């Protein structure tokens, strides 16, 4: 990779996720996947692994695949184990002189397939130390089945299993901090990223993850217009607000060293992120001011801790 990131040069590479897939307009997932795969050196091959997800049912509908690389989907909860298996086969066949060249192994799964049902498989694969990248495209709910809460769903968010009613309003629990849990696995590289601006953040972290030996994990915010209930044209703006309110801080942990990769010049109030999204609409009803205050307090507390970790 050239030391200086250049978007123009990067987008001139042949695409690895072709257009014509069936993800929604305004969905973050396609942008995330295309962005991660773009970080592969052109001459390297990859095997893409996918958990059952919106991504899977939209990019590989028989007999059409949107991937230029080899691809495997097996089930919902086993994408990390599946990637382990491909990597194991590569090691075995390479040792026996049956495979040549560099092949990289990249898994994509949603937050349902990562934070929840695929958590055990992910933890196991990271602990075993396979040379692979696991990418969670985090859209904060089970979107493929129609917007049900996951352990990644933030507090107060409305989903179809945490509806807004007269007695309960949205999700009661905070979002699980999966990135930190992955840091605790002591793997070579963990990063929290977002498809932002000129995609430098996404690209740089993807490149590091792909070309760092051993298991690497990327948690990438991936807004969902259906689930978050925003007009699809506002995707980039919503992503930016998540980062500038410190709801989704950008950082990386490389060989145990924490580094903040973006510090907003002015930390915006969390309600700037909440307001444009229908899933948080009830938080702005009279009498619910405490919800916004609580959400702000939670973000502040997490942000302070991150600043301590990163020494920023």
């Amino acid at each position, binding site marked *: 990779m050239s030391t200086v990131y250049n978007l123009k040069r990067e987008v001139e590479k042949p695409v690895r996720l072709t257009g014509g897939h069936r993800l929604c307009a305004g969905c973050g997932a396609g942008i995330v996947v295309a962005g991660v795969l773009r970080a592969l050196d052109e001459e390297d*091959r990859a095997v893409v692994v996918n958990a059952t997800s919106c991504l899977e049912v939209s990019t590989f509908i028989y007999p059409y695949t949107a991937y230029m690389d080899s691809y495997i989907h097996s089930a919902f909860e086993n994408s990390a*184990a599946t990637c382990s298996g491909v990597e194991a086969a590569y090691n075995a066949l390479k040792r026996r002189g049956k495979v040549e060249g560099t092949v990289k192994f990249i898994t994509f799964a949603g937050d349902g397939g990562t934070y929840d049902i695929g958590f055990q498989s992910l933890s196991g694969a990271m602990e075993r130390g396979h040379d692979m990248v696991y990418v969670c495209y985090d859209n904060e709910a089970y979107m493929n089945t129609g917007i049900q809460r996951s352990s990644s769903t933030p507090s107060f968010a409305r989903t179809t299993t945490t509806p807004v009613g007269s007695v309960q309003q949205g999700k009661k629990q905070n979002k699980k901090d999966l990135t930190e849990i992955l840091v605790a696995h002591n793997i070579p590289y963990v990063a929290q990223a977002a498809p932002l601006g000129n995609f430098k953040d996404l690209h740089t972290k993807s490149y590091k993850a792909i070309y760092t030996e051993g298991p690497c994990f990327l948690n990438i915010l991936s807004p969902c217009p259906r689930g978050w209930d925003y007009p699809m044209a506002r995707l980039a703006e919503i992503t930016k607000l998540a980062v500038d309110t410190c709801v989704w801080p950008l950082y990386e942990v490389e060989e145990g060293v924490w580094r903040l990769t973006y510090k907003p010049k002015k930390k915006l109030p969390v309600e700037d992120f909440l307001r444009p999204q229908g899933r948080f609409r009830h938080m702005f009803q009279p009498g619910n001011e405490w919800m916004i205050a609580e959400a702000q307090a939670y973000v502040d507390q997490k942000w302070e801790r991150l600043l301590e970790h990163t020494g920023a």
Partner: protein
Amino acid sequence: MSNRLSGNEAVAYAMKQINPDVMGAFPITPSTEIPEYFAQYVADGEVNTEYVTVESEHSSMSVCIAAQAAGARTVSATSSCGLALMYELLYVAASCRLPIVLACVNRALSGPININNDYSDSMGARDSGWIQIYAENNQEAYDNFLMAMPIGETPEVRLPVMSCMDGFITSHAVENIELLDTDTVRKFIGEYHPENYLLKRENPLAVGPYDVSAYYMEHKVLEAEAMKVAKSRILEVAAEFERISGRHYGLLEEYRMEDARLALVIIGSSAGTAKAAVDKLREDGVKAGLVKIRVFRPFPGEELARALAGTRAVAVMDKSEGFSANGGPLFAETRSALYDLQERPYLIDIVYGLGGRDVKTEDIEKVFGRLTDIAVTGEVGPVYTHMGQRSKEDNA
């Protein structure tokens, strides 16, 4: 060469001789020794398999699926709840047409939890699209495992194979068995050359699509056709195996069936017990025989019907409860197979041996006693019963 090995060690030894590319390993009683023995082969450099010690059976089958799709030859071993945890993926493996070979050391499913033998684990997986072959003893466990790959990897078959043996009874008991030398095994197994695989440089492959209703049915029909082809392929491989080993195998084994009027249909190690009972009854002049089902999937229905055509009364011995309220899974298959016979024998189902409940020659003799009564009187009595359990009075 002759050797004394437990069933588990015999299968692990077969794996060593094969030297597969990848093994997914997770412990569960009574199959645990297989990954243990294999780990030692890895540690001693006797194999150069990529040995993946996963965190669950679900992941071990996931590893096998992915590795096999990537172009590797893969094996695993499990039992009981481990197989149950794999269920979702057993179907994925079969539908992706991946000839993985799994040693299934049969053990009862929970609950209540029990570590001993019956077939509730693999019988639950009978409709998953896997070939299922059952061993009577350690020799068969070894032989069946060696035959599994040449069967499953046949291009017209391309189905995974479950090589089953009885937990503890076969897996842990030590017997004298004949081993083939490794060169002979490797020649018999051959190299694995899949047509398409993920790591093939010149042709990237996509595996595991979202299959809409416009295609799903065609794919399932192809799978069903492959299972039919497997039947003849199993016999071809058995013939090749006989040439190198001198040991003969079929889809089923007929024991003293030439002129038998009373017969059992049975699977696994109990067939050994039942053969002893048949011998004793033969000495007493009873025309007893048995049919041991070796291959349960694909089910040898026509062959079974032919074998039972001349009998008067037959007991199907089911070592798993199907909870159908209409008999166990082997009974359902057998009764269906016999439907096309012009003259059908009387048929009863006996569920026995659940959770390792012992079955002795005397128990089998009693079954033949019942068959004798049925043959003489033409009165079948209760068709579906259990054997070997304490009565309510005993429990009180």
